[in-house]
């Protein structure tokens, strides 16, 4: 399963020129609002006719402006989940769910109603009308509706952006289940929230001003110092995988990463499971000597791989920690005063670390 796309499109005040490939798993398109993410997803879904370009899914040409090919949206077999759930107001939840089922390709395989209801926890909602649902419930129904049309790929355009924190937490586990579950449906996921992407994506594409600035496996792009200004200095930071070793009686859990063990509070995952850790660059402090008498116990020996000066007074430092890569953000002055250079060995102190609550289990 793969999507490959190259398109250029001109709006009155903005030009888009994008080439990207999306394989299995979740491919996230990240960018500020106005960067062109939604244009890309609309072009894939067939809601926008690009000025020029070519889009193929699994080798089937959906758009080729040179050859005058434009497959209409209803023949693309791509499920779309929009930011506003767009449930049909005159139909019940069940009727919404099965709306697309009659159009699924003959002989297509995919979940049936009971699978989707179980996956998304919709049992209690089936007879309700969309107007009576909360935002999170609507989004779950919209997701189920898209799944039941048996798409080859799911397109998700900021599916969580209109939800508040708790509602987001309500949906995220379902998306993780979708990614890790037997459906194995590839997903093109548009978002401007780094935390969502850090938790969900397998592949990350950074878009700015209508152009792809970086693309690759999530762990690589997130730990690329060049990506710091694209993600935002406060949001940038490496994502690494850790195994949960033990939960202490004091609420502190021990997690193992390739460079050593970390002690972290508030880890919900089961012992033995694998979780994603998000280590913000601004939460990683560097020390030339092994620090003593610190309140933080999470100190890792690291080696400096790259130093990337930013536009402002800061610099992004890429660190090798075991087989993982971390990012640290320090001031340009500190780089000079500490004499930081490539290949230098030092210590990284992790002030705070966010653990993705769900297990990523692969």
């Amino acid at each position, binding site marked *: 399963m793969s999507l490959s796309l190259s398109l250029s499109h001109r709006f009155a005040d903005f030009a888009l020129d994008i080439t990207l490939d999306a394989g299995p798993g979740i491919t996230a398109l990240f960018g500020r609002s106005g960067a062109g993410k939604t244009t890309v997803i609309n072009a894939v*879904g*067939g809601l926008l006719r690009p000025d020029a370009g070519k889009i193929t899914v699994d080798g089937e040409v959906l758009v080729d402006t040179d050859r005058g090919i434009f497959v209409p949206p209803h023949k693309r077999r791509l499920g779309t989940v929009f930011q506003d759930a767009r449930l049909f107001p*005159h139909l019940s939840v069940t009727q919404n769910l099965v709306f697309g089922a009659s159009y699924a390709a003959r002989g297509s395989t995919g979940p049936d109603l009971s699978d989707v209801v179980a996956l998304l926890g919709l049992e209690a909602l089936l007879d309700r009308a969309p107007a009576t649902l909360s935002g999170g419930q609507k989004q779950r129904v919209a997701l189920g509706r898209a799944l039941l049309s048996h798409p080859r790929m799911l397109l998700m355009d900021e599916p969580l952006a209109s939800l508040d924190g708790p509602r987001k937490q309500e949906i995220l586990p379902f998306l993780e289940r979708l990614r890790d579950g037997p459906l194995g449906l590839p997903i093109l996921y548009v978002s401007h929230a780094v935390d969502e992407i850090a938790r969900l994506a397998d592949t990350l594409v950074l878009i700015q001003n209508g152009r792809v600035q970086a693309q690759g496996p999530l762990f690589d792009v997130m730990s690329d110092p060049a990506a710091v200004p694209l993600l935002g200095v406060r949001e940038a930071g490496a994502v690494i995988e850790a195994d949960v070793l033990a939960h202490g009686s004091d609420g502190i859990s021990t997690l193992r990463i390739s460079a050593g063990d970390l002690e972290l509070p508030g880890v919900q995952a089961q012992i033995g499971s694998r979780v994603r850790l998000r280590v913000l660059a601004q939460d990683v402090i560097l020390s030339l000597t092994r620090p003593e008498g610190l309140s933080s116990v999470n100190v890792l020996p690291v080696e400096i791989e790259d130093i990337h000066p930013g536009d402002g007074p800061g610099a992004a430092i890429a660190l090798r920690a075991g087989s993982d890569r971390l990012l640290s953000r320090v001031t340009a002055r500190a780089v000079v005063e500490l004499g930081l250079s490539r290949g230098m060995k030092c210590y990284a102190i992790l002030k705070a670390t966010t653990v993705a609550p769900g297990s990523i289990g692969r």
Partner: protein
Amino acid sequence: MTPDAAAWDALRLSLWVAVWATLLAIPLALWVAWLLARRDFWGKALLNAAVHLPLVLPPVVTGYLLLIAFGRTAPLGRALEAIGLQLAFHWSGAVLAAMIMGFPLMVRAMRLAIEAVDPKLEEAAASLGAPRSAVFARVTLPLILPGILAGTVMGFAKAMGEFGATITFVANIPGQTQTLPSAIWSALQIPGGENQAVVMVLMACAVAVSAVLLAEVLARRVAARISGA
């Protein structure tokens, strides 16, 4: 004060003409309303003007234009008569006149309803694999039902009350082309006809009020279903 046979005839003919005019106009009005609401094409402004023309022209003028186009000596009228469809001075001509006069009102109501449907819902339906006809039948149509209903009632009321174009095009032949308004007008022309006129006025009021009430009940039911409350 009881209705005489002519009054009953006129009421029966008016209802017959109005029902036919409304039923025949609904699909065409819906199509035109959809074109005006959702499509961009060359001549859209012209079509819009043509649809609204009967609303702004004096009805007698519309009737006269119909007579010129479909009269028994006009080429079009003769061609239709050859296939057995006589319009001028026949009740079917009254249907045509009523259709044309009610058409702008129907299109207006339906167009507003279509414009109120969020195109994003139609996009969502297409993304689920529904071809355009199914999107219309399963999403657009149910959502605009109240508008169709409102347009239908207006078209029906206009057809019931149509006088100027009808009397010009199909004349005022009792039992054949004499509709309720024509009959009221005739009754008022003869001395001592006021009684029958009043009876028929009451008939017209009763029909109009029932139509509005029925539409209200239906609209409420549809609205409740759509909002899902």
